[in-house]
């Protein structure tokens, strides 16, 4: 009886793991058969269970890319990149998706090495690193204050903490920007939040925009690559 119960318990515990692997395999099979829409459905279901999994965002981006929705693909690759910036596949795909929309992943004039270094750590990792240096500084500072020992170490930790905090501050500022991607094939940029305002430009899908304001079903945006400001229908934009 005990053995039976143990077996049932084991099956119940392992079922979600086995099911999840099967779901990913199933999605991959569909992807290989060219049934991208069906594969996308599975990945999106899985994402509800693991909302911070960069690989799921990456796979969703792949499905959208193959379906021709370069804007939605870029948005999902960007989400994956924010969670796992060191993954070379993610970096490759986000670059390709943005380039297909006429955008540059690495801003003009910034060396690729510097960009890579700046985004070597994810936001959470950089935050953790800043905390670690804060704790180190506090420890050494306390020791120095009380015991008057390890003064140089304390000084070095203070300098490192200062640099890390600066890095973290810039990343935090970027993180606070409401970034979005044009998701509809073409979005019209108007001078006001409504179709009664004239359209000043049209932007193809895949272009990066920063959201400035919102009113009713409209976003005020700045197209990063063009520096154009205007209003776009919310349905045409995918927030990252």
């Amino acid at each position: 009886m005990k053995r039976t119960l143990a077996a049932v318990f084991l099956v119940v515990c392992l079922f979600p793991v086995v099911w999840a692997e099967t779901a990913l395999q199933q999605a991959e099979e569909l992807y290989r058969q060219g049934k991208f829409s069906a594969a996308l459905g599975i990945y999106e279901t899985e994402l509800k269970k693991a909302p911070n999994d960069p690989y799921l965002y990456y796979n969703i981006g792949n499905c959208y890319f193959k379906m021709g929705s370069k804007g939605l693909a870029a948005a999902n690759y960007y989400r994956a990149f924010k969670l796992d910036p060191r993954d070379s596949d993610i970096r490759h795909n986000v670059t390709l998706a943005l380039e297909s929309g006429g955008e540059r992943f690495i801003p003009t004039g910034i060396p690729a090495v510097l960009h890579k270094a700046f985004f070597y750590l994810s936001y959470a990792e950089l935050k953790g690193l800043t905390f670690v240096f804060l704790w180190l500084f506090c420890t050494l500072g306390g020791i120095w204050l009380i015991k008057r020992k390890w003064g140089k170490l304390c000084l070095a930790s203070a300098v490192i903490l200062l640099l890390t905090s600066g890095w973290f501050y810039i990343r935090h500022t970027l993180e606070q920007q409401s970034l979005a991607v044009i998701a509809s094939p073409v979005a019209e940029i108007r001078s006001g939040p409504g179709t009664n305002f004239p359209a000043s430009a049209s932007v193809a899908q895949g272009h990066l925009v920063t959201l400035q304001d919102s009113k009713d079903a409209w976003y005020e945006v700045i197209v990063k690559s063009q520096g154009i400001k205007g209003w776009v229908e919310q349905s045409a934009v995918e927030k990252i």
Partner: protein
Amino acid sequence: MRKTILCLLFLCFTVYAAGQVSVTAEVNKTSLALDDELTLSVEVKGASGNMLMPELPSLPAFNVYSREVQQSSINGKTTTLFRYIMLPRFVGKATIGAIRFTHNGKTYKTDPITVTVYRNAQGVQNTRSASTTAKTVSNGNYDSAAAVKKTVEKADPNLPPLERNLANQAYKRGDENFFLVAAVSNEKPYVNQPITLAVRFYYNRSFYDAPYQKPTVSNIFMEDAGSSEGTQSIGGVLYRYTEQRYQLTAASAGKATIGPATVRYMTGSIPLSPLDRLFGGSLVSAEETAQSAPITLNVRALPNEGRPKTFYGAVGTGYTISAEADHTQAEAGEAITLTVTVKGPGNLKATSDLETPVLDGFKIYPTQATSENAAGSKNQSYKIFKTVLVPSASGIYTVPSIKWSYFDPVSASYKTIHTDPITLTVSPSTKTESGFDFGAGKPGNGFQTLGRDIAYLKTSYAPGLSTLAKLSGWETLNWIMLCWLGISVFFASIGRKSLAQKKAYTKARGRLKKAQSDEAVAEAVSGYLQQKLKISTGSLPLRAIVESLQKRGVTPAAAESFSLLWQRLDTARFAPGAPDAQNAKELAQQALDILKLLEEETK
């Protein structure tokens, strides 16, 4: 027997009757204006086989400008009608002499016909009111009912709508010599549905110098669709016409108007000779205008329901689509031209371009579209989409079926047609050395960049969060560490006080070494007690100071030594004698020894 004879007689009579040839001549009117025209009809009954044209007499008073022959056969009897349209040249009575017709060596003659030519239509009206004779038949038959009663003819209902409409309009205006009619093939077309507009200029007499002004349109695209000429009998009168056709497509739903077409013409004969004018001939008339009635179309919008994604705007019936590749076997990097051809009625120029399917493994260049009318047809057009595909790698590829939808106005529904899939076999490139290169690859080094695509799927979940990322959640520890720092600062400030205590002895020793008087020694000892032991020597008696020292662990012996020193210092402070450096030095040394003892005992 009698019956047989009767039958034979009847048969002989029939044969005789059939063999009889009769020739009659008639005119459509016996009085006419100078700018009017006269139709002379010569009817030959009973003559068949080869026959000559009737021999007209000399007609100096008329210009004959049109001849027509019609032949019919009823019950084996052939009737041939020769019709001449003539224009009078002079005012007054004119006689058409006997017309001769020769058949099988026998000559037949008609009676002469006299007509009166008036200068204008007013004279004709006056004559008609005075006489009921409108038609003269040379053999003496008189058909007044046919001449007076005018019935409007109707077009054959089996004719196409456009032809029927034109014919009916023409019948209504059959009493005019020149008129212009216009009609469309469909007055309620859908947006972008091709319809035909025909403008016909009818005339039954000569004219010259007739500039034509085509109709103006609104909300419609109009294209010339050719012109033609023909004849039509209206009310027994032969009219000639010139027709101009246009193909129309409405741009948007709602009302669309086709303005009137106009022809400005001058009637009459060519300018007359001076002799003609002398005998009453006239010059050409003033410029006159014929105008068609305007037409209003009710353009219907295309239904949104059921509109396929592959609908590019074509409206019509019977479209076809085909696709072909210029070659289905190619090397990697070799261009293949995919041609998609759409054929059908109407104007395909207005349709938007076909979306070429995305083909993995191919570099696809932008589609070039051309649109023309089909050769030899004004109503059929085609649109050709040419796309260059360059395979980047070897393999067997399939260009999928390409769908194309149109709206069928007959069934009022959308219909989708498609091409057949095309299989392309691509072999590896043999042009490695000087071959193609899409990107960074350097030809000749054995490496070629064939194209770029996204990286493949991730087949597992992402590894868990890194330690650093996990630490970002330990925000509470920040507060703990900051508290620790605060406490350290607090303790450090306390530590600074103990430092002062520690330094009290060193400070006192320095002062004692420099002391030159008893007061200086007293102040050094007093400062030490103040800094080290927090004992205020100014307000406390000696006994209280000793008790304080003993409380801090000073032994009674040391306390006694201190008491003796303090008394001596008191004496020096309150009853000073003559300054004695030697004495002060000894006192300083004694104080130093005692302070050292206190320092050791209070550690």
